């Protein structure tokens, strides 16, 4: 990419012109390109002056109490069964989503093995999973040719009691979403996934919140916490 290309890309990112997938790709790219990252940060900082020009608007008297209710409210998991599509629509973050780090680390049974013990083979694809709340990078997934995936959390979040974080991928629309494993708290680990075709450019990875010990239907039923599309490393 030329310097001009980078400036234009940083501009599209800051102006909000990138769609969800392009935004994820931008965040991947900017993690390894300090110049691009600095361009975007600089422009965003400058453009924020335009937001500061907004004259305060009136708002409903109960807005604060609605926020307090969401913060204090009990978990209300959405049990509606969804079918994961290749490009699921943007989902808004459920307000009850617990992102607090937990001290206890526990693993879902059965899925894990060979934690970090393998040689440094190169991943076939890498996906940065973005937080649904603000598109901030939350997790890196490296998928290997032997069906295993490595999770590298960029932020901590934990499932509430009685629920688990379930990792999914969508090899193709016909196969539908496939579970790669469950965990109760984000951590750096390696999962032995089921036997699947070689992961491809653009393959979807996501984590949903499911009732323990895992989705009762074998498909994602809970809200998407983080998701991203894979790219092969150059």
């Amino acid at each position, binding site marked *: 990419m030329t310097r001009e290309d980078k400036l234009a890309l940083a501009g599209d990112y800051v102006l*909000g012109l990138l769609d*969800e997938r392009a935004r994820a790709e931008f965040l991947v790219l900017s993690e390894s390109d300090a110049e691009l990252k600095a361009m975007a940060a600089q422009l965003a900082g400058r453009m924020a002056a335009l937001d500061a020009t907004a004259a305060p608007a009136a708002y409903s008297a109960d807005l604060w109490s609605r926020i307090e209710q969401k913060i204090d409210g009990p978990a209300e998991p959405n049990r509606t069964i969804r079918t994961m599509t290749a490009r699921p*629509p943007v989902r808004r973050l459920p307000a009850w989503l617990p992102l607090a780090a937990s001290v206890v680390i526990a693993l879902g049974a059965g899925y894990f093995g060979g934690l970090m013990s393998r040689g440094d083979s190169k991943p076939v694809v890498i996906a940065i999973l973005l937080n649904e709340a603000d598109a901030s990078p939350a997790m890196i997934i490296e998928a290997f040719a032997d069906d295993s995936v490595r999770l590298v959390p960029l932020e901590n979040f934990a499932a509430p009691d009685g629920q688990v974080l379930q990792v999914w991928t969508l090899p193709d629309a016909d196969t539908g979403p496939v579970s790669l494993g469950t965990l109760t708290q984000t951590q750096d680990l390696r999962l032995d996934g089921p036997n699947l075709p070689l992961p491809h450019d653009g393959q979807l990875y996501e984590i949903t919140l499911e009732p323990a010990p895992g989705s009762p239907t074998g498909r994602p039923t809970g809200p998407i916490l983080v998701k991203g599309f894979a790219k092969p490393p150059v």
Partner: protein
Amino acid sequence: MPPESHETATLIERIATGDRFALAELFDRDAGRLVAVARRIVRRQDLAEEVVQDAFVALWQRAGQFDASRGNANGWLTTIVRNRALNLLRDGSRMDYHDGDTLAAIGDRASDATAAFDTLAERDALKSCLGQLDELKRRAILLCYVTGLNHGEVAATLNAPLGTVKAWIRRGTIALQECLS
């Protein structure tokens, strides 16, 4: 104008420790401005309030992720609101923007974008650098940033071909960044 960023950073640090009073203080101080920022993009009061509501809940849960050494606290807070508003705008199931938009609504967006530019402080380099752009490039950039329009919507608003608008925005953002640096 928003308060000093270091005051915001102090509040966010308190929120990260679970201090509900700090969250309430930030809400009392900034909710009106943030509702206005969101409304420029989602155009509806109820959706703008929903955006701010969700943003404050997210802030409560994620304040610990703010790193004062890396970014401006006001910018961080505003970015959470902007991203949620843009997601809502692009989420077709919630917004019937294309079908329901009227000439008046387009005009409202255009005047919001212009007003934001006009209200920038004269000494702000952003104002002089935006001012140096051709008018159509400037308007295109402001429509995107301030009101969340995409290329196609800007083309419709400015009554210009899509390819031309893309070129304006590309050349405009490059020139803007050259000028600001």
